[in-house]
């Protein structure tokens, strides 16, 4: 009973989001750009510091850990390749997606959930406004733009972190580390990472909003659904990542 109504709710959300987008492109129905901008600020702009700092540290860690191995075979310069490729192909997108799940996915669930218990969703419906279009579409657009953008920042900061450590601790020449990274990281590596991050954006929005719309009890359930949204979206992000990585391994 519970799981079947859950599937129904999820398919309703997916359907209505799709319809809202086709409404927008085909029938030129207006989407509130003010709401989109406000979501972009909340989910993207305000996440820049945390994404940048965490990626910087992960870059440093990656650099140190790979140096530990590569030093033994006397191939220290390949730290640049290892850091560059693992950050752009994998760590940048997934770190960003996990951070955005924790920051924005949870806030979507909490926002929609508390709107649901204070009857605001009912109020929207009785005003003849589709709550899915009104609430999800701006979040959807914002994350579709912002997760790839944050991923780019994360890529840059991660590589910067690796470079910083290599130059200061590992005594690698700054210029040659730079050249090594440029020649190792292909455009393909960055673009597959960005493609993945777009898919993660879809997953995070849908999971967060779905859990929000499923709230039916009181404040306690808002908390429970918020937790569930973070756990579920991190899980789904990693599973999807596994699938895409396998796909790219064979087809690029």
């Amino acid at each position: 009973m519970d799981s079947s109504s859950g599937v129904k709710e999820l398919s309703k959300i997916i359907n209505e989001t799709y319809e809202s987008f086709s409404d927008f492109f085909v029938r030129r129905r207006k989407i509130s750009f003010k709401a989109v901008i406000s979501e972009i600020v909340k989910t993207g702009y305000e996440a820049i510091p945390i994404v940048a700092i965490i990626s910087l540290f992960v870059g440093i860690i990656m650099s140190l850990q790979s140096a530990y191995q590569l030093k033994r075979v006397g191939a220290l310069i390949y730290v640049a390749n290892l850091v560059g490729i693992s950050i752009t192909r994998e760590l940048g997108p997934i770190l960003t997606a996990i951070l955005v799940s924790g920051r924005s996915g949870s806030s979507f669930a909490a926002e929609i959930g508390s709107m649901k218990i204070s009857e605001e969703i009912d109020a929207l419906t009785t005003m003849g406004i589709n709550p899915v279009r009104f609430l999800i579409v701006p979040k959807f657009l914002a994350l579709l733009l912002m997760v790839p953008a944050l991923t780019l920042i994360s890529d840059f900061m991660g590589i910067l972190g690796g470079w910083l450590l290599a130059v200061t601790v590992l005594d690698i020449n700054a210029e040659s580390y730079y050249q090594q990274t440029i020649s190792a990281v292909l455009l393909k590596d960055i673009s597959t990472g960005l493609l993945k991050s777009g898919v993660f954006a879809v997953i995070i929005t849908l999971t967060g909003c779905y859990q929000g719309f499923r709230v039916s009890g009181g404040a306690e359930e808002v908390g429970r659904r918020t937790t569930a949204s973070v756990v579920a979206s991190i899980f789904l992000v990693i599973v999807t990542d596994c699938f895409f990585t396998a796909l790219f391994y064979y087809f690029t």
Partner: protein
Amino acid sequence: MKKIIEVKNLKTYYGDMEVLKNVTLDIYRGKNTVILGGSGCGKSTLLKHLIGLLKPAEGKILFEGKDITKMSLEEIVSLRKRLGVLFQGAALFNSMTIGENVALPLKEHTKLDDSTITIISRMKLDQVGLAGFEDYYPSQLSGGMKKRAGLARAMAMDPEILFFDEPSAGLDPITASGLDDLILKLNKIFKVTIVVVTHELPSMNKIADNVIMLDKGKVIFCGNLEEFKGCNNEKVRQFIERRADEDNQSHEEYFKTLIKEN
């Protein structure tokens, strides 16, 4: 008198529990109808059916002769533009100012330009006595003011019928009475049909033309206010005279329920 809403043999369930049992009632155009009943009698559920938020298991809800349970999405949306709802907690959007809240239905449903919408929303706020509050956020207002702002939003599209879910809940007698006056004013001046769900007798006495009383999911009374006051139904008398349910349990039975021995 013309009927605006007719409910016929409405039945609904929450899980296995039957919440509304064969409810049949009429709401007349231009009248103030009060739906009365104790807690848990199904009156809020009935209201949610009337505004199309819930679908009944069985029965019909006719709005001007058309069954809303069988309407397409477009028909329901265009119907909803003709009705306004004031929810129990006012249900204002906390991220928007009062003015933006009132303007929202206009922005979504009309092609008016922004300055016209601002003027209309100010007028609506003025009608409920909140002139000059358009830049405040809901969290900055008192309970009574929130309800007034919610009412202004419900009136934004000039509805033909307004629904109120427990308008006086959580308000002091003076503020509640002020809200009742406002409801009467709307009915007299704008000829809006009013449907109020409440359990408060003073409020009912003031507003009602017609009274519908529910008890345990059944309609036990349907008629005008005078008839209601003279009604001899045991439950109605109990409600009007404010008597608690009599405790018929013997001591022996009470002990048995305590130790769960049947």
